């Protein structure tokens, strides 16, 4: 599994995840994911378009980071998930606490302005 990040023009960080987000996958990206989302007040969109498998441990990783960001005044939104990954997010109720959008622009619109 790999992780890529890109600063968008409006100060939002896009974090792209790629691969199978299972135990081994989460292990591979956990430190970098946490580091990218750590700054106070960070606004992040997690792009899941490259994730073809999302295990419960991956859901936990997403939510732990989203929670930590929120406690530091930041915001996380999730976008672009494939159909099966969208179903995982639904089964775990992720949308109750984190905004889940179909595309990047929709996710952008859910984040507060800087």
């Amino acid at each position, binding site marked *: 599994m790999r992780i890529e990040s890109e600063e968008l023009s409006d100060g939002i960080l896009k974090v792209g995840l790629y691969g199978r987000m299972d135990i081994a996958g989460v292990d591979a990206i956990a430190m970098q994911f946490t580091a990218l989302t750590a700054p106070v007040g960070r606004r992040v969109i997690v792009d899941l378009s490259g994730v*073809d498998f999302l295990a419960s441990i991956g859901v936990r990783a997403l939510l732990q980071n*989203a929670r930590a960001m929120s406690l530091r005044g930041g915001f996380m939104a999730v976008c672009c998930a494939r159909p099966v990954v969208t179903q995982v997010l639904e089964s775990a109720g992720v949308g109750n606490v984190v905004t889940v959008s179909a595309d990047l622009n929709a996710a952008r619109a859910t984040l507060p302005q800087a």
Partner: protein
Amino acid sequence: VTGPRPLHRSIDIAASLDALRPLGHWLQEAAREAGLPEETAAGLDHALHEAVENVVRYAWPDAIGRMIRIDFRCDGTRAEVEVEDDGRPFDPRSVPPPVSPASLESLVPGGYGVAMMRHFTDELLYERDGSVNRLILRRRLTSSMERK
């Protein structure tokens, strides 16, 4: 266009988290051979992963040297995966759904595995047979694309 066809495949795996990824590949291969819709195969893959991870983590005080038996069956109208272990009794159907938190700050992440098993199956069957746990993850193959 050919639809799903009868198939039975079995595998014995070591009760190890390292076995999960190869198991996923095995299931995908069996699902392809049986002609399952991609969405059905992906859902079963997720459900099986969670079921076996639970077994590896919790069925025995120490899983080293333990084995888990997996059966994939398709009869053309439904597909199912059976997980058999000789660990302590555990019926995943007894696990309540995760509680929806009032806010992200009050969230205690966890409990998603069984929720995923339920979500990606039409039937979740469990029996304790002597010293054996038998869990069946079943998907109907008719109208599977519109089921959830």
